[in-house]
């Protein structure tokens, strides 16, 4: 590896037995193209262990580490813990307000991940006010973002990568109806990313009709890698040495 780290990423692959094997030909040369593969949630259709086994077959046994977060589809059957277990048994790292550090050449690459949640964006966001359901909706997103910030900060590494399912910024939602932005992401995720120094890339999925590129208010590149957005098996991003931090 020369001059940084190569990050492959895709989200919203929605696997089950019907599409098992579709990605595998494109993954054949992954080891020559990337140092790590990130999966940005919605790995399954209904969040069942059976579908998770399809994900394990499709993305297990690859020549690079695979790091994943779950998405809302992966929670649909209330079996998210079983889904995560199946994926971990296949060698995938599954993050939820946790992190992992990989060694890529001379670099320690830290990745923190969370599903994240909705809530909307500054100036048009949900608040903990009114009915208990509204308070719970808002609180869930804020609590996840706070824990996510802590997991990012705890990484002992040279460069940090933020992996979420929900979007941290509205720019990568362009193309989606404005009315559903509060269900697609939360500015609290961007705030978490910007709070921690040295984040070189933020990757998310979830917004199928959104746009690929955005930036947090703090200047961190954000990429929406939902499969219908990138329209190929995965994207590859090269983080240059200038993206590498020296931890405080």
């Amino acid at each position, binding site marked *: 590896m020369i001059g940084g780290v190569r990050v492959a990423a895709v989200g919203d692959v929605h696997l089950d037995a019907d599409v098992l094997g579709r990605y595998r030909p494109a993954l054949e040369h992954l080891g020559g193209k990337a140092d790590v593969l990130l999966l940005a949630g919605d790995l399954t259709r209904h969040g069942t262990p059976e579908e998770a086994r399809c994900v394990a077959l499709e993305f297990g046994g690859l020549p690079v580490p695979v790091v994943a977060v779950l998405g809302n589809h992966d929670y649909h059957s209330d079996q998210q813990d079983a889904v995560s277990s199946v994926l971990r048994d296949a060698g995938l790292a599954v993050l939820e307000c946790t992190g992992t550090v990989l060694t890529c050449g001379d670099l320690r690459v830290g990745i923190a991940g969370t599903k994240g949640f909705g809530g909307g964006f500054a100036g048009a966001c949900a608040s903990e006010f009114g009915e208990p359901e509204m308070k719970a909706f808002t609180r869930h997103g804020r609590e996840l973002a706070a824990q996510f910030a802590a997991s990012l900060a705890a990484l002992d590494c040279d460069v940090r990568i933020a992996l979420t399912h929900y979007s941290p910024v509205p720019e990568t939602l362009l193309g989606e109806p404005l009315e559903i932005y509060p269900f697609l992401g939360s500015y609290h995720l961007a705030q978490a990313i910007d709070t921690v120094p040295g984040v070189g890339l933020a990757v998310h999925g979830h917004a199928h009709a959104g746009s690929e590129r955005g930036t947090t208010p703090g200047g961190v590149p954000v990429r929406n890698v939902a499969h219908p957005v990138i329209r190929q098996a995965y994207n*590859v991003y090269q983080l240059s040495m200038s993206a590498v931090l020296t931890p405080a």
Partner: protein
Amino acid sequence: MSVDQYVEGELQHLLAEDERITEQGIRFVRTESGISLVGEVECAERRDLICQAVAEAFPDLPLRCNIGITRVHEPEEVEEL
């Protein structure tokens, strides 16, 4: 049959909540005579099932399927950040 916002609302619920489908990424475009379904899914079977479910729920609704299959080819480019 005309398409109004209530029909659109029912279609949205149908595609998201029907356990055979669970799709939230399909848009509905009203046409002069009916509705066009627009979006991408992972395989032809899922596309056909969506159109079948909508036709079953709204048999009098002229339907055009503009749902594509998301490609899975290997990337040729790298974006430098």
